[in-house]
């Protein structure tokens, strides 16, 4: 919670627009919800061709990096790649934030766990 990065700050403006409609029912998730929602608003390639802000319930469609770039194998040795899918805290980033499809998320998370085991990725960064 102690890392309100650029992501979440941009997210706040997004929440002002449309967050009310979407997060209404999901208040039970607690404090984490606020942050994750901030991440959900702007798509992962931050600063890229972002969506035009005008429309109210507009959300840019997120695409699976692996499907787009046609990366079939997700290997535990590829730390650079896997690092994109762990949060700064070392947690695996949920699909709803990264836009990775189910199939690839499964492989990514398996690979991350293997990498953790051999000390290529951290279990947690305090």
């Amino acid at each position, binding site marked *: 919670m102690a890392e309100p990065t650029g992501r979440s700050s941009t997210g706040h403006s997004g929440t002002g627009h449309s967050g009310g409609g979407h997060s209404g029912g999901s208040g039970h998730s607690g404090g984490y919800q606020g942050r994750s929602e901030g991440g959900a608003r702007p798509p992962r390639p931050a600063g890229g061709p972002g969506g035009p802000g005008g429309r109210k319930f507009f959300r840019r469609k997120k695409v699976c990096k692996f499907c787009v770039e*046609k990366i079939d194998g997700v290997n535990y040795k590829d730390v650079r790649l896997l690092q994109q899918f762990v949060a700064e805290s070392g947690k695996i980033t949920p699909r709803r934030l990264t836009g990775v499809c189910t199939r690839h998320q499964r492989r990514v998370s398996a690979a991350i766990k*293997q990498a953790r085991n*051999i*000390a290529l990725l951290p279990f947690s960064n305090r």
Partner: protein
Amino acid sequence: MERIYEVMFIVRPDMPEEELDKLLVALESQVTGAGGVVKAKEKMGKRRLAYSLGRFQDGFYVLLTIEGGGPLVHEIERRLRVTEPVLKFITVRMDEEHKRLDKMKKLRDAKKRTVVASPVTAEAVPAPVAAEAAPSEPAPATT
């Protein structure tokens, strides 16, 4: 067809190079003695560990690709466990993954052909594709 495993392990960073080589030779002879094949061994070099292991912040990573059965892996792991300078190891089975990747690649190539060429010629093409893919596959694996 025997299975292919990747054994990655970390040895302590202050281990002298020649001792590491000795360890590798010993492991290799173990593998070949048990009827396996060492397909590749790679010293990936010193790397910062993501978390400290005991009192070590760095580790020397080694990757061993072997072909063999389950008992062989069992023996190698036992060996690594009793080898004191080895801090951590992981064994990952790769053959199924390779198979899956090959299949995906073939599928993708076939799809590409059908887009480029007309459907009639595409019928004939996949066979040569498979033929040229097969010899090219083992070549990188053996090196």
